């Protein structure tokens, strides 16, 4: 849908400023005020329609996310992990992927799922407690959510090794958090990817917090620098700037796809909501910090950009909001209609091949549960 690539010069009318306040080690293409800025290594040049598309994605994703929170509050979900604030990182990186690429998410990549055309209701199953994921990862090349921190970075690396062997023209993108960077598995993934020159983009959403722990409890130099010590490049991008996220991730995927091995992208962003719906962030962080980041809101800045450049009018914004509500209503309706699994189904997919203990226990439990039928 979006077509520019790394290094392409600006071709639209949008005025660009010189490198923003973001600092030299942070790739930013769009300031919080909605102005384009230049970067020596990355640029983006989209059509107005494409810019509007990114805005729409972010609004929809935020709305879907809010619906998740609402559904949890109303007892329809057991838990929800909001992405609030991370829309640019997810939509930017999500839209950078081709259909052939493969994404390994954590539990918070609702926005990436959206870009990969995964039905949001799929994501709700686990949070509602009707399944543990349950979708077919190969349908949209979007793996199941992984809760145990860091594990999926190794799966992604292995998958990329498979792509390599198959000679596929594609890359893998592995999502993980700032906290996850401390896990052995993530660092082993760096080793395996590097040594095998595997086509995998490690995409860290540094949202500043791992539940209640700030970055300082996980690392004391910027995370993107970790990559160099493992022999591959690392880049930090403004994670609230959807254009920069798109440009950097697209370049990163292209880097991996074309045989240059792994690369680490650190998207510097902020988790504006709670860690999950059971979390209470007021216990560990200040409201000032939150306010500071609100000023960098990914959607607001894109809206300013569209407005400043007259790429969109009021009607468009209203239309997107309406669409968002429609999508949310649809998801809500389908969520509450999700049937509870039959207890007996717990025996169905543990093993691919016949398993006598499964059979024995299925029969036992089945008979036992049936004896209560009607009573329950």
């Amino acid at each position: 849908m979006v077509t520019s690539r790394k290094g392409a010069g600006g071709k639209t009318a949008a005025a660009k400023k010189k490198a923003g306040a973001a600092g030299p080690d942070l790739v930013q293409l769009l300031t919080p005020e909605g102005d384009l800025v230049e970067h020596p290594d990355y640029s983006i040049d989209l059509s107005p329609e494409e810019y509007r598309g990114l805005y729409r994605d972010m609004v929809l994703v935020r709305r879907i996310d809010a619906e998740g929170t609402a559904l949890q509050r109303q007892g329809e979900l057991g838990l929800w992990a909001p992405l609030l604030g991370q829309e640019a990182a997810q939509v930017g990186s999500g839209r950078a992927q081709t259909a052939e690429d493969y994404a390994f998410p954590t539990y918070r990549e609702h926005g990436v799922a959206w870009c990969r055309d995964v039905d949001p209701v799929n994501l709700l199953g686990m949070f509602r407690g009707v399944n543990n994921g349950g979708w077919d990862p190969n349908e949209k090349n979007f793996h199941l959510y992984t809760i145990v921190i860091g594990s999926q970075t190794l799966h992604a690396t292995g998958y990329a090794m498979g792509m390599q062997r198959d000679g596929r023209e594609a890359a893998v993108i592995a999502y993980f958090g700032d906290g996850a960077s401390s896990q052995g598995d993530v660092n082993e993934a760096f080793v395996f990817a590097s040594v095998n020159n595997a086509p995998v983009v490690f995409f860290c959403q540094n949202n500043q917090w791992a539940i209640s722990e700030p970055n300082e409890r996980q690392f004391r130099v910027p995370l993107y620098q970790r990559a160099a010590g493992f022999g591959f490049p690392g880049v930090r991008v403004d994670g609230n700037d959807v254009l920069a996220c798109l440009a950097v991730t697209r370049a990163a995927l292209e880097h991996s796809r074309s045989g240059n091995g792994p690369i680490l992208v650190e998207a510097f962003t902020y988790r504006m909501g709670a860690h999950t719906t059971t979390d209470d962030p007021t216990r560990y962080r200040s409201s000032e910090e939150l306010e500071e980041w609100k000023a960098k809101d990914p959607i607001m800045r894109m809206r300013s950009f569209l407005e400043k450049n007259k790429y969109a009018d009021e009607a468009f914004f209203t239309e997107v909001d309406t669409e968002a509500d429609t999508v949310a209503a649809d998801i809500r309706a389908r969520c509450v209609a999700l049937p509870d699994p039959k207890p007996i189904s717990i025996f169905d997919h543990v093993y691919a091949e016949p398993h006598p203990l499964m059979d024995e226990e299925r029969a036992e439990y089945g008979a036992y549960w049936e004896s209560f039928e009607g009573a329950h």
Partner: protein
Amino acid sequence: MAESTTKTQQISLSKGLNLGLRRALEDDPKVLLMGEDIGKLGGVFRVTDGLQKDFGEARVIDTPLAESGIVGTAVGLALAGYRPVVEIQFDGFVYPAFDQIVTQVAKMRARALGKVSMPIVIRIPFGGGIGAVEHHSESPEAYFAMTAGLRVVAASNPVEAYWMIQQAIASDDPVVFFEPKRRYWDKAELDPTATPYPLYASRVVRQGTDATVVAYGPMVKTCLEAAKAAEEEGRSLEVIDLRTLSPLDLEPVFASVRKTGRLITVHEASVFMGMGAEIAAKVTEKCFYSLEAPVLRVGAPHTPYPPSRVEEEFLPDLDRVLDAVDRAFAF
């Protein structure tokens, strides 16, 4: 604080642990708490609430997000003379630390021919019943119970939690300490001046004559309820809270089985290869001629913990326990 350790009070299980940890921190400057989010947040279950504030960041340590690192550095701190109490956030997240636990923590003392000890407590909230997503409701106790060099205990109520955590910290052996997460909010009356029951001992928590039921952790309450229901049906169940899973303290179980002739083991973990298997094998060996029926085991099937919308059916409840009792009588 002084008051909190002498005055009888109504506490939750989570508060019992909190008070127990507080006393341990007060009593021994070598006691440290380590884990993810245990500082300002007070842990996801608030078990360490307020402790970092009162004892400082050097003693209540918010660690990096890496369980092997947490346990591995705890080993080093233990070697340096500290008594680390490690919090694993949920049962399903202990496995990254598995190597450090079974290879290092468990074996260090034997390797050093007793010249060093590993007074480490590894706290693990375990079990289901809270409607959580996957990896948050597991019962991994058998993995640890079978590991030589470790001790494994499980608390079943607030008062036990208060005492047992302190005893575990005082123990010179490494202790994997299981906390029944769905009972965190259960309340009971704590008398902090009472004399605690020994840590490594099981306990008859209800006398009975017709059949014996052994359980631990969250299932003790369930079994007591089952015993109450059975009583109404005219059946007298003796309920034993195992408390210690390694070592097992089975003498009270043997004595009970010699009296009742029937034994039912109950745990949330899978029946297959669970604690119940060892108990059944051992009790059968020691009480072969007293048993009127085989030891029957209540627990989970050999499947991963299911999505929470099925957990009510999945978890052993009063009915499942009574069903097993019936089957024992039908033999």
